Structures are given as structure tokens and as C-alpha cells.
């Protein structure tokens, strides 16, 4: 297999890579011209569907298919929301794209908006990315100057406005309906579905929500072709009728206990071992790996012995993980205590739970309190069973919550307790020698508020 050359990250590292001038030096906005001149929105939808592109935001839903859910012949307006709320722990690839190659994102966005007949695009950017915000705003201004935005783009009948909308520090704004509620000026409580955003979304109009990396892939598909995209990655697993394949290049965020943390591009399907060795420079400080998060903390954990898992849309599920997620790989070395990992995870989710539905609001809060008690030497073995029960019962997979945050909270709990049970039991027994065997409810610790 020929050595893969980065395409999404091709411009990153060049001086002033974020300017239109530099972007257009290597064929920038040619794809847009081609699309507007020669294709109809339906053509773009069909080609995107054929390419097998799956959303890069975490759920991996086939992008072209999602676009076809929009009602045909709707009087409009149709809105496009670009999800730049990237808040999944371990993830930073959207940031790099926006800071160092904003025009790639914008070109992909404009093409996607054309495909979906969107009248306006809301670029929802988390407020913790001030540099990305600056660069995107500058790039948008350059696009208006160049006629790539506004009325009658490049002389075509298509008009589009992009409005950059800043978030205010809430992970749940990354959930598509949470994003829409936040855009509308309300608290970001995800909506019940149906109705789906494609039917009734932002401002009660049909809406599509896509991730930053996804639209960057769209640009690449219309630059280099559907066949090119399909030549990269892994075709559907014949043993899994629900697998839609893992095509295209992927940005993998590598962080944690490795020598060279960073964002690396590889065809979908690279294994954790390869990532760490080829790109990460190996485990730091000469240590051995213990575990890794495969795709952002919501996806759960891989034990070191599972690092041969292919990081595509299909394999992580076989190892008990929730999925590929954002492909953010966080590596933990042998000195990490799983009790600390799990407490950090539970604390994150209880802090970010929107609070709307009971199992998530209470479950994440209860889990954090229990993990805190365990960490402080008042744990019991029975707690692990209770934590598992809480985790098994919350999420959209069992159907008990409105959105997938609860599933994200549950998977690290399930994976950690199942894969590292022995270690957790030893911790509990050694820190609470007199009480680890207790089965009755224990009085709560008077702890400082940890939220």
C-alpha cells in the first residue's frame, strides 16, 4: 500500500496557510467552482452518498444519506449548522483545521450548503477557541470579498450567508439538537426526536448539522473524486450487515502519555499500536502502555492488549467500545490508576450533563459522588456493581435518555469496571480495609463540592 500523504492537513504548517492567497495557490476553491458550474445539489448529494463519507463528529452517520432526509420541494429557508463546538476530551482536530486551514473548511461548507439548498449557515464555534474564531471570521470576510459568499456566488444562482455564532462553554452544545437550541438563544437542552432536525430544526425549519472535519472531507471529495475517497480506508465488514464502511482519510488526535502528541492524518482503520509507534514516538518516559481511549472519552477504553483494534467505524465495537467517536486517542501508561481515570471521566460528565432527563442528571451525579467516596478510601466492592447498573441503564441505547451524553458517560464506566475490575477491587480493599465488604448504604462523606 503506497504511503498515505496527508490531504486534510496538507496546508498545515505552511506560512500564512490560513489566508485565501496561500489556500488558492494549491487549487483552493476550484472544487467549488466546478460544483457550482457543473453539478446540481442533487448531484452533490448523490456523489457524497456514493463516496461513503460518514460523519466525523462522533456518530459516524453517512453524510450523503443525512442530507437526503431534508424534505423535497420545501419552500425553505433551510439552515445548515456547522458544528465547531468540539468539546470531546482528547479531541482537537477541528481546532487545527480551523486555525491552520480555515478555507478548506469554508469551501467544504459552501459546497455542503449548496448540496442541501441551505439559505444560511450558522458556524457554531465554541468560545474556548479564540484563535480559530479570529481566523474563521477573517476567512469568511475574504470569501465575501472574493465572491465565494453572498448573493449569486461566482455568478451562479446560489446565494449563501455564513454567520459565526459563539458558544459559551457547554459540551452538550455539540449535540445536534443541543446546538440548535443554543443557537436559538435558549439553554442547550437537546430535543426529543421525532421531529428530526432535517424536518424541523433551527427556527422550526429543516436543518442539517455537520462536523468541521466532515465538510473538509466534502471539499476533498469534490476535488479529487469519489473513487479517490473510496480508495482510502476499509470497505464494509461482510460479517456486519449494519457496517457502512470506513472510507477516507481521518484525523487522529493523539495525546496523553506518548512522546509526540499531535494531530495525525491516516486512512481510516489504523490501529492504536501503529498510531503510537508511527506517529506518537512511542510511550513516554520509556514506560509501557496500560490503556487508551479510542475516540474521545465517550467511547470507553481499550486495554493495552487490545491496541490491535482498528480505529475505524466497525472494530471498536468488537472490543466493547461505543465506537470510533472523534478518533481522539488518549494513551495511559502503566502508572495510571484506573480509579483516577474513572473519577475524571465521571466528573466530566456530571459537570456537562444538561440536566434535562432524570437518568443522566442523577446517574452522572451519583456516579461522581460514588467515585469520589471510593477514591477517598470509603469504597465497597458492591459499589462497582451499582456503578455498572447505573451505566447499563442510562443512554439512548437502552432508550432511557433523550441524547447520547448518557451513553458517553456510561461507556467509560462499563469498560473500566469490566476491563480493570481486579485493579479497582484491589484499590477498594486496600484503601478501605474495614469497610470494603459492607453491603448496606453508607452515610455520605462530608466532601467539598467537586463540581
Amino acid at each position: 500500500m503506497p504511503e498515505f500523504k496527508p490531504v486534510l492537513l496538507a496546508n498545515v504548517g505552511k506560512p500564512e496557510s490560513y489566508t485565501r492567497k496561500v489556500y488558492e495557490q494549491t487549487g483552493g476553491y476550484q472544487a467549488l467552482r466546478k460544483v457550482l458550474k457543473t453539478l446540481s445539489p442533487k448531484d452533490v448529494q448523490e456523489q457524497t452518498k456514493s463516496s461513503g463519507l460518514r460523519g466525523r463528529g462522533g456518530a459516524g452517520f453517512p453524510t450523503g444519506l443525512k442530507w437526503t432526509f431534508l424534505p423535497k420541494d420545501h419552500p425553505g429557508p433551510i439552515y445548515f449548522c456547522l458544528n465547531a463546538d468540539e468539546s470531546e476530551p482528547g479531541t482537537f482536530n477541528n481546532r487545527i483545521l480551523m486555525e491552520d486551514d480555515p478555507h478548506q473548511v469554508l469551501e467544504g461548507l459552501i459546497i455542503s450548503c449548496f448540496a442541501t439548498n441551505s439559505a444560511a449557515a450558522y458556524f457554531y464555534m465554541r468560545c474556548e477557541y479564540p484563535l480559530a474564531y479570529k481566523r474563521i471570521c477573517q476567512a469568511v470576510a475574504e470569501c465575501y470579498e472574493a465572491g465565494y459568499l453572498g448573493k449569486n456566488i461566482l455568478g451562479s444562482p446560489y446565494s449563501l450567508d455564513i454567520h459565526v455564532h459563539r458558544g459559551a462553554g457547554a459540551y452538550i452544545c455539540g449535540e445536534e439538537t443541543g446546538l440548535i437550541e443554543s443557537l436559538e438563544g435558549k439553554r442547550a437542552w437537546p430535543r426529543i426526536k421525532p421531529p428530526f432536525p432535517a424536518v424541523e430544526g433551527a427556527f422550526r425549519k429543516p436543518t442539517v448539522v455537520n462536523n468541521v472535519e466532515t465538510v473538509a472531507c466534502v471539499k476533498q471529495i469534490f476535488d479529487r473524486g469519489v473513487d479517490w475517497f473510496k480508495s482510502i480506508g476499509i470497505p464494509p465488514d461482510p460479517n456486519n450487515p449494519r457496517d457502512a464502511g470506513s472510507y477516507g482519510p481521518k484525523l487522529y488526535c493523539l495525546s496523553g502519555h506518548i512522546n509526540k502528541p499531535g494531530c495525525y492524518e491516516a486512512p481510516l482503520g489504523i490501529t492504536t499500536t501503529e498510531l503510537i509507534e508511527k506517529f506518537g514516538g512511542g510511550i513516554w518516559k520509556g514506560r509501557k502502555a496500560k490503556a487508551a481511549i479510542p475516540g474521545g472519552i465517550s467511547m470507553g477504553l481499550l486495554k493495552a492488549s487490545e491496541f490491535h483494534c482498528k480505529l475505524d467505524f466497525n472494530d471498536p465495537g468488537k472490543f466493547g467500545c461505543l465506537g470510533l467517536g472523534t478518533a481522539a486517542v488518549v494513551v495511559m501508561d502503566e502508572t495510571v490508576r484506573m480509579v483516577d481515570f474513572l473519577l475524571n471521566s465521571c466528573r466530566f460528565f456530571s459537570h456537562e450533563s444538561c440536566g434535562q432527563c432524570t437518568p443522566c442528571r442523577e446517574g452522572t451525579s451519583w456516579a461522581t459522588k460514588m467515585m469520589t467516596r471510593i477514591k477517598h478510601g470509603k469504597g465497597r466492592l458492591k459499589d462497582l456493581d451499582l456503578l455498572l447498573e447505573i451505566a447499563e441503564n442510562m443512554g439512548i441505547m437502552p432508550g432511557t435518555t433523550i441524547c447520547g451524553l448518557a451513553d458517553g458517560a456510561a461507556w467509560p464506566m462499563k469498560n473500566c469496571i469490566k476491563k480493570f475490575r481486579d485493579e479497582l477491587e484491589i484499590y477498594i480493599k486496600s484503601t478501605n480495609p474495614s469497610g470494603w465488604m459492607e453491603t448496606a448504604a453508607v452515610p455520605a462523606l462530608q466532601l467539598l463540592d467537586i463540581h
Partner: protein
Amino acid sequence: MADKPSILTDEMIAEIKAFLPRYPSKQAVTLPALHIVNEKLRYVPLRAVVEIAQLLELHPSQVQDTLTFYGYFKQDAPAGRCRLWVCRSISCALRGGDELLDHLAHSLGVKPGETTADGRITLEYAECLGACEHAPCVLANEKLIPSVSHQQADEFVQTVK
């Protein structure tokens, strides 16, 4: 009711109004309006919430409901001239993020969420800042400071006026 001076300056009101044509509803300008006020005043006092609500034809409760959902807007007093966000999510925690936060809390003499007595610095914890390749990292107002050691943190704090 006595005429209280307006918290929103004409400039802020103009900036907020400039956002109105971008959205089909006035309520959607809530977050932009909160950001505009927060940028200028370093907090969003309750009176500003009432004035924003008037501008957007909302009840103050609706604006306050939205505001308190997010962690970004202080309301009781202006934040320090530098708002120091220390990331505490997994990648940074693995590289000493929690300890960094503790260190700063100790050396600044404040708890996360509080401002130093001289008004220079507000220490905050943040969830994943999206700069995991630079863990542990700190966001100081608009500037991302990568791979912060305790010493570097202390040095940076010295530079804050």
C-alpha cells in the same frame, strides 16, 4: 421607578442590534449579546440582563435562564483582568492538569472561580480546551499557553498586570 442609568452603552446596543438581521428570531441574539456585554464589562450584571431582554423583546427570566446554563458568564462582580482557565479533562489530567490547578490556587491564594484581591487574575477550571497536544494547557483570556509547567505558570502570572 427612578431612572437608573443604562448599563448598556450606545455602542453595545448598536453592536447587539447589528446581530439582529442574521437570525430569524430575536431570541437567537441572546448569546451574541451576552458575549458583547461580557467582553466590555468582564461580567454580565443582572441589570444588563434586564436591558438585553428589553432589546430582544424577551422576559429577563428567559435571558437569565440561558445565561446561567453556561459556565462562561460571571454575574456577581467583574472577572479579573486576566481570566485563567486551567484544563482538567483527561489529556491534561494525565499530564498534571489537576496539580497545576492546585498549584495556581495555592500560589494565587484563591479557589477556582475566585478573583485575586488585586483584581488581576480570576482562576477557573475548564473542561477540555481542545489543545490536548499541549497538555497541560491554560487559556489566559484569548491566549493559549501550551505545556505549562508550574514554573512557567508562576512566570506567566508575574507578567499579568
